[in-house]
């Protein structure tokens, strides 16, 4: 069963200098209790997709095409009031560097409660306390610390508090946009472990968004790779990491220094991503691609299922 379906989503930004083709015809589905990761470099459109799902796109964004289906309803057609009931109650989000978003002059516990009350209405004192303790247990916080202020929390604890806020209304899915980018390695590892536990033990569907392929590799059942506004590969995490099909995915994997195994020379992808004001007409990766063919510069590549459940956007995608 799918929790969320994104179909042919195309988003453009209107700026004073022109139209930015930020996201182009992206389709994927998030299944029940699954962790799906979207990996891509800065400016590839991954956060735009998350904002479109949350109904939080800036005013200069235009959804040109596509649907975002949640339980059969297209979120893009909802009015702001309806969207408000879905946000947080159905779909919650942990933003990039969200731990800096806690209000410094309110107690952490009160801020979590506020999220609960704002979306769930008045609750009895007892119910509130019970749910607060339940949330603390879920994210690994000491309930006795709920009377503390954010500055008394470490970065990792603040991130846990933000996750508790996101879970306050028992959403069916969570979007985690760079959930560990600002944290130290060991703390990041604990947070990712905690999220994994929530996903596996409580059946929470999580959409991870990260620039770091290793974070996605650690946490996700399936993953998608975005480049310059397009989804270029989608499939089981193990399949993609073992047999990357898109030249960009292959290049990305060769760009990361490895901690284990023999030391190999890094083979960076030459060049830089295209300007999305004027993207290449055919395959957007073509100018940097080591395997380009005759049709690549001019024709949009087909979205091919190369293997069972493993899709790739490439003229040479057939295995």
């Amino acid at each position, binding site marked *: 069963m799918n929790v969320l379906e994104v179909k042919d989503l195309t988003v453009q930004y209107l700026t004073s200098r022109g139209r930015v083709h930020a996201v182009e015809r992206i389709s994927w589905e998030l299944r029940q209790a699954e962790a799906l990761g979207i990996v891509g470099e800065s400016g590839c459109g991954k956060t735009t997709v998350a904002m479109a799902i949350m109904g939080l796109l800036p005013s200069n964004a235009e959804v040109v095409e596509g649907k975002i289906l949640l339980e059969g309803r297209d979120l893009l057609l909802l009015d702001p009031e309806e969207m408000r009931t879905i946000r947080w109650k159905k779909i919650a989000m942990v933003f990039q560097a969200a731990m800096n978003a806690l209000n410094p002059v309110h107690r952490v516990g009160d801020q979590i409660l506020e999220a609960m009350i704002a979306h769930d209405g008045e609750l009895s004192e007892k119910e509130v306390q019970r749910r607060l303790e339940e949330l603390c247990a879920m994210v690994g916080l000491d309930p006795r610390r709920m009377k503390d202020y954010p500055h008394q929390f470490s970065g990792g604890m603040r991130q846990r508090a933000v996750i508790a806020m996101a879970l306050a209304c028992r959403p069916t899915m969570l979007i985690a946009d760079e959930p560990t980018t600002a944290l130290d390695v060991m703390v990041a590892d604990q947070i990712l472990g905690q999220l994994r536990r929530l996903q596996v033990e409580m059946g929470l569907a999580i959409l991870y968004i990260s620039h770091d392929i290793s974070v996605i590799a650690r946490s996700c059942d399936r993953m998608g790779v975005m480049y310059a506004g397009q989804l270029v590969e989608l499939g089981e995490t193990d399949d993609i990491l073992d047999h990357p099909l898109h030249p960009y995915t292959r290049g990305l994997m060769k760009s990361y220094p490895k*901690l284990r195994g023999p030391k190999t020379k*890094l083979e960076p992808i030459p060049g*830089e991503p295209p300007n999305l004001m004027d993207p290449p007409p055919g395959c957007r990766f073509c100018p940097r691609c080591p395997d380009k063919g005759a049709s690549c510069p001019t024709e949009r590549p087909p979205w091919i299922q190369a293997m069972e459940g493993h899709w790739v956007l490439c003229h040479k995608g057939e295995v």
Partner: protein
Amino acid sequence: MIPTETEERGPIVVFDEVVKVYRTTQSLLRKSTGEVRALDGVSFTIQKGEIFALVGESGSGKTTCGRLLVHLESPSSGRVLFQGQDLASLRGRSLKEFRRKVQMIFQDPYQSLNPQLTVFQTVVEPLLVQRWGSHEEREERVVEALEEVGLRPAGDFMFRYPHQLSGGQRQRVAIARAMILEPQLVVADEPVSMLDASIQAQLLNMLLELKERHSLTLLFITHDLASARYLADRICVIYKGRIMEQGPTDLVIENPLHPYTRALLRAVPTVDRRKEELPPPACPVDLLLVPKAAACPFYSRCPDCTSRCMEKEAPLAEVEKDHYSACFLHYG
């Protein structure tokens, strides 16, 4: 790594029991309210021509080491030596000479470049400060430096401003500026961590090439063990102002000795290790006991912690050849 002439071997940098204390003050009355020991008796040497990586989490003191080494700050006690000279003794001409020989690359190319200067003005500035050559010679030198860092043809970039460049290009400009005076030592503080993976790889390879071509010595400061492994000849792991472990890269990565290094290595997500869950490290020590200031900084998170660790941190011990660790585990 092998220098062309054997007599050139030897330490180019020595940190000798360096302590750096920052005082925290209440702004209104300038009253001292406490102190932070950013570095607490740090000693290491960097050999000429090597890449030495200082690896640590935020607050470990790794950046403080870099700032002390380029003489932006002075140690509270202990000495920092460059080519045998105590930095505290440098004055006048010898200080200027030092500034020519030692350069720094900062983490954030969005903040380290002056937005009002063109690429040419940014890169030529050190030459002007050092009163180097004629105008034509300087221009030629800038072109050479820009092309060397991959900004080709240099003419396309010289008269652009930072906002017209991508993050990767900006960092290349910062590297060109650091390299233009032909320094002997470069301190690179997280030089790639703000950049995307494919650009990171380009710059890491470029640093390796520059180091080879100019027989540079490089202090590479990072939180990322994988890039330290890729670049460095030796790795020094630092935590809360103390050195935990130090040794040749392969030994530290493949046979980590200190429990802190082991925990760090386990925590790093990598493409080659997936989804295995690890139990959180147990802590057998009663946290209510107040540790001594000299306690091992890692004791409260250490799975191998004993009561001894709360009294005093073990001194660095050479456990195998050139491989040091500061842990009582190795003392039997």
